[in-house]
């Protein structure tokens, strides 16, 4: 029996269509099901999308550079996934609660998290870059897929207390193999909870191609759990935005959980510690570069006859401003105080932790006093 190379597995075509509202040339393709979710989008909104994606790509580049310069311990690039993140998060209401993985920098940034606060975690200076209650985004999750259950639970809570919000779980194609993601879909479906499972299928889980996770379209599997599901071109910001709007409306109408598979591509490495040349061919990267989400929106704006140059200039200015502020903040960011090591392990008094803190601080003080 021949050995099957997992690098060349195919994914079966699946039964759900892949919605594309902007083709790679930026031409608008009518979509009977999703078009009406775009009716409130103005040209100014598209210009904002462009600015968001340009700033985000710049932040990603800056972060990679800062890691190379020793300012960050690690960075997980999102290069290529800008439309999937901005298109989805801009479709949410501010009080829809989001449960992200570790790559959703764009989602957090779009909700108002400052780039330097985001990167402080990757520098190792803080355990979390934001206050979850302030931006309605849970702490970033590194264990693959664990956050999907938290989103399901939060959605059950919305259902039980009669809230109007939607709970949103972000995860990747690799996470769909995890028990927690599958359990989350079971729970959300059982209680018909208002939960959106948003999967960015970026084709790669470090070195493993999506076919190793799923031999059929991921969207088809979600559909099997009884979730209303859409498969969209994840590099098409209009398709992502419209499908997310559709999913959120579905949940708000009390119709239960939904799933979106946004088909995109991780153009960079898994993290700055990864070397993709060991497992994938450069042709694939070239193929996806032609589908770039930012280029595509620019082409569409040209098609519309918009003043693209001024929008691009504005986006560039915002990116420059963010980058300068980010670099200054990160390169001067102080290490946390040693007391923080012991702070917030427990919410209520915990004598052994307090004793350990006191003993260690006394020990350090002995050195300072004993010169």
């Amino acid at each position: 029996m021949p050995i099957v190379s997992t690098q060349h597995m195919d994914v079966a075509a699946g039964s759900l269509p892949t919605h594309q509202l902007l083709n790679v040339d930026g031409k608008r393709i009518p979509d009977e099901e999703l078009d009406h979710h775009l009716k409130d989008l103005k040209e100014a909104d598209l210009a904002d999308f462009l600015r968001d994606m340009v700033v985000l790509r710049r932040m990603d580049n800056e972060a990679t550079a800062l890691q190379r310069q020793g300012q960050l311990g690690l960075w997980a690039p999102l290069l290529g996934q800008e439309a999937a993140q901005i298109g989805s998060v801009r479709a949410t209401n501010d009080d829809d609660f989001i449960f992200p993985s570790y790559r959703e920098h764009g989602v957090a940034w779009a909700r108002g998290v400052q780039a330097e606060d985001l990167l402080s975690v990757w520098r190792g200076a803080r355990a979390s870059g934001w206050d979850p209650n302030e931006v309605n985004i849970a702490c970033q999750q590194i264990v693959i897929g664990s956050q999907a259950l938290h989103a399901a639970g939060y959605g059950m809570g919305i259902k039980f207390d009669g809230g109007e919000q939607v709970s949103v779980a972000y995860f990747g194609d690799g996470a769909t193999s995890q028990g927690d993601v599958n359990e989350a879909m079971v729970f959300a479906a059982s209680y018909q909870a208002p939960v959106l499972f948003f999967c960015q299928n970026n084709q790669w889980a470090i070195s493993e191609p999506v076919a190793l996770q799923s031999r059929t379209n991921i969207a088809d599997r979600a559909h099997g759990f009884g979730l209303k599901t859409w498969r969209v071109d994840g590099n098409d910001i209009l398709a992502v935005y419209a499908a997310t709007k559709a999913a959120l409306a579905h949940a708000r109408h009390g119709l239960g959980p939904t799933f979106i598979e946004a088909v995109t591509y991780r153009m960079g490495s898994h993290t700055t510690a990864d070397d993709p040349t060991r497992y994938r061919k450069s042709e694939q990267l070239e193929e996806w570069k032609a589908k770039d989400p930012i280029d595509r929106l620019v082409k569409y704006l040209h098609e519309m006859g918009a003043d693209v140059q001024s929008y691009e200039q504005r986006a560039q200015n915002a990116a420059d401003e963010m980058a300068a502020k980010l670099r200054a903040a990160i390169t001067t960011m102080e290490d946390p105080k040693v007391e923080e090591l012991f702070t917030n392990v427990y919410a209520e008094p915990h004598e052994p932790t307090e004793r350990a803190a006191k003993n260690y601080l006394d020990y350090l003080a002995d050195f300072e006093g004993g010169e």
Partner: protein
Amino acid sequence: MATTMLKALNKSLHDALSEDDKVILLGEDIGTLGGVFRVTDGLKAEFGEHRVVDTPLAESGIVGTAIGLAYRGYRPVVEIQFDGFTYPAFDQLVSQLAKLHYRSRGRVKMPVTVRIPYGGGIGSPEHHSESPEAYFAHTAGLRVFAPSSVEDAYAMLRQAITCDDPVIFFEPKRRYHEKSDAELGNVQPDASPKAKVIRSGTDVTVVGYGPTTYTLIDAAMAAEDEGTSLEVIDLRSLDPLDIDTVAQSVQHTGKLVVVHEASRTSGLGAEICAEITERCFDYLEHAPLRVTGFDVPYPPSRLESHHLPDLDRVMHAVDTVMRHHEASKGAAQ
């Protein structure tokens, strides 16, 4: 009127549900059936299916969704049906529930109580008799409670539910039918219960928790007949450990025996013996001893009487520390 531990736990959940509408119960078979042990009997009928929630059969799912509910402001109390089914939820317990307060820099509280009927001695098949408490006592961010008496079952469960930290709550299932005339109430305002001297003595300090506490009382009575006085301490909280109470006792007895059903290596007994050796070295007249389950998988039930620390094994340890004591007294004379 006498009440059982099962009824006390049921009343504790009932009172918590009545007092705070953010308290929500989740677990397998806890609703319509009332739980396989009937701890939640009647609660769904009284509080409704959105307060007492039958869940799909997925332990990671139960704990993971409880975390999501806590993010939403709920105060979930989940039931893991049996000790040996805790492990599918391990990531959610030790990497999520335990760490979210720290990870969020204190912004997100996780007031989740995880009830686990635990321990052996009921003739069950595999996975129904385990004592996994050491895993959770080892994990920073979790509190671990293990009541032994009917009164404590009520009060400590109330305490666990009120606590803003996650609490792993171990219920000694072979004592579920234990009866007491004591009045239920007396809930302490502290985040964790303190250890309790449940029988005073002068010769040997014997420390246990949960189901072994009863064996220690039996041992104290047997030892008394032989002229040896045991001081029995019920730990009640396994994290944080109230070592002060144990140390005070050892300072006057000079001898320590720690007893638990869980396996010996890296168990709670090892921790207590190490702490006491560090704090009470000059008071000790004999090395602290442990009487525990063996370092074997929980055995088929026809062998469990050998595995579980019984009166004879506890008395053997007590005799060992006492004989040495008598011998050294003789040598000095």
